């Protein structure tokens, strides 16, 4: 576990060295522009736009980071043969994998936290005091965090056996498929064919359901998210991530690195 922690910290340091957190400057500029401009060009949605834009940016930037850093995490180490040197130390392959995963999650957590602070500052700028209803913004951020954790696990899984380019395509494909799971199921049912209906149902449960983690609209309108949904989403993400990481560990453990 200590070894995993060391890998995680190094992964985080590497991301910071690669100036990944520079995206925060873009985010800050986006928030400032939204706070200043929206009031001039629209009516009655200053607060909504800041929340929607802020949460969307947190999600999109996080997704880009999770996919494009995640797909290279293991592949790069294998490609540059640095994994051989690492594995000659007392560290098991699954520990290395878990460390990489935790390191990227830490990067994403820092990034998301700073962005959330930026969002809060922008909301303060447009003259808003915080109320209990704003807790739903934090819930939406938490759901985005769960979504990013799941995407990172998927990217890592593909990174264990494929090139970064293909891994990115697979991960993004799964993400898009995961957003449309409900449609895939209803499409299968609509065809009237029992086989396609069953396939739609299987895909519905098999694909990661990213629609579960969308609470941006609820947050924007200050609507409460039930505790039961928070618990269910947390359990769903944890279970799915566990399955994906176990599969990734199995692939990496059985992989011939020579």
């Amino acid at each position, binding site marked *: 576990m200590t070894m995993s922690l060391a890998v995680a910290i190094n992964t985080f340091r590497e991301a910071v060295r690669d100036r990944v957190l520079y995206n925060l400057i873009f985010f800050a500029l986006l928030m400032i522009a939204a706070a200043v401009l*929206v009031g001039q*060009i*629209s*009516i*009655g*949605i200053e607060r*909504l*736009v800041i929340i*929607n*834009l802020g949460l*969307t940016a947190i*999600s*999109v930037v996080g997704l880009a980071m999770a996919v494009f850093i995640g797909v290279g995490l293991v592949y790069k180490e294998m490609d540059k043969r640095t994994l051989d040197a690492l594995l000659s130390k007392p560290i098991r392959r699954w520990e290395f994998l878990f460390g990489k995963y935790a390191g990227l999650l830490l990067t994403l957590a820092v990034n998301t936290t700073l962005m959330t602070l930026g969002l809060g500052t922008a909301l303060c700028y447009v003259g808003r005091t915080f109320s209990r209803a704003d807790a739903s913004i934090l819930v939406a951020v938490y759901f985005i965090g769960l979504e990013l954790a799941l995407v990172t696990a998927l990217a890592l899984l593909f990174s264990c056996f494929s090139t970064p380019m293909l891994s990115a395509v697979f991960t993004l494909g799964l993400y*898009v498929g995961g*957003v*449309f799971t409900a*449609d895939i199921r209803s499409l299968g049912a609509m065809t009237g064919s029992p086989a396609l209906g069953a396939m739609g149902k299987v895909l519905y449960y098999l694909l990661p359901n*990213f*629609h579960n983690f*969308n609470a*941006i*609209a609820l947050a*924007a*309108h200050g*609507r409460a998210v039930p505790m039961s949904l928070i618990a269910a989403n947390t359990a769903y993400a944890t279970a799915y991530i566990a399955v994906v990481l176990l599969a990734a560990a199995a692939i990496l453990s059985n992989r011939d690195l020579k």
Partner: protein
Amino acid sequence: MQIWLRALAVPVLFAGGVAPLQTRIDAQTQSVAREEEELLLRSGRLLRKLSLGYESLLADVYWTRAVQYYGRKRVGHDPHFDLLASLLDLTTTLDPHLVVAYRFGAIFLAEPPPRGAGRPDLAAEFIHRGIAANPDQWRLWADLGFLYYWDLKDYAKAADAYLEGSRQPGAHPWMKAMAARIAQQGGSRQTSQLLWSELYDSTADPNIRRNAFEHLQTLKAEEDAEQLEKIVHEYQVRFAATPTSVGDLVRAGLLPSSPVDPAGYPYLLGPGGNVLLHPSSPIASDILGSRPR
């Protein structure tokens, strides 16, 4: 030196080359763009799917587009608001809880041309959709009541809407009073003044406030004109002649001084003794025609 020259060349080339070329292209394509003013995607449900879960932000974008479209048409005195209903439909399909879009969108749709699309029927339908998606929003009931009262002149439905709205959680007490007043007095000017005053006092939005203020001024001018017409009639009875100007009424002792409209411009008399607004008065004469009697 060479570095400075290169650094200078970038803005010079941009200002002297790229920007003028873009201006020339704009001039050539602007007419085409005007003709192609249409929505590529009219299905809100499809847009919702394509938004990949970010439909809330897309709704804000479409709402801003609707506001800009309405503003552009209004500034350009263009009475054709062909895309307005579609833009509002897209906005509220993407985010059915965007209450502001229902409230302002209904105003944009209901106002007579060139101030709006002149479709109060669509506006009422739109507000009904808003109520179905947001049943706890009493303000939407107030907007519906207002729409039935002012634009559709259906006072029974207006009273019903205010009454239904008064039953919603957090509804303002004046909702019930308004329902009773409309049921009792229909479209009297006092009721109209009360409605516009309430709208003026209850909103923080400068556009709605300005609109309400304009209507209040018009109603006041209408009231003044009625009073003046009574005095003109009195003059005709007393002197067996029609006054040619307001000055005649003052000189006859029927008025202490020359009266002015709420914007500060003097009232004028027409050839038959009818009261007219000063040509420079900003009071919206087009609203006068749509007032309830």
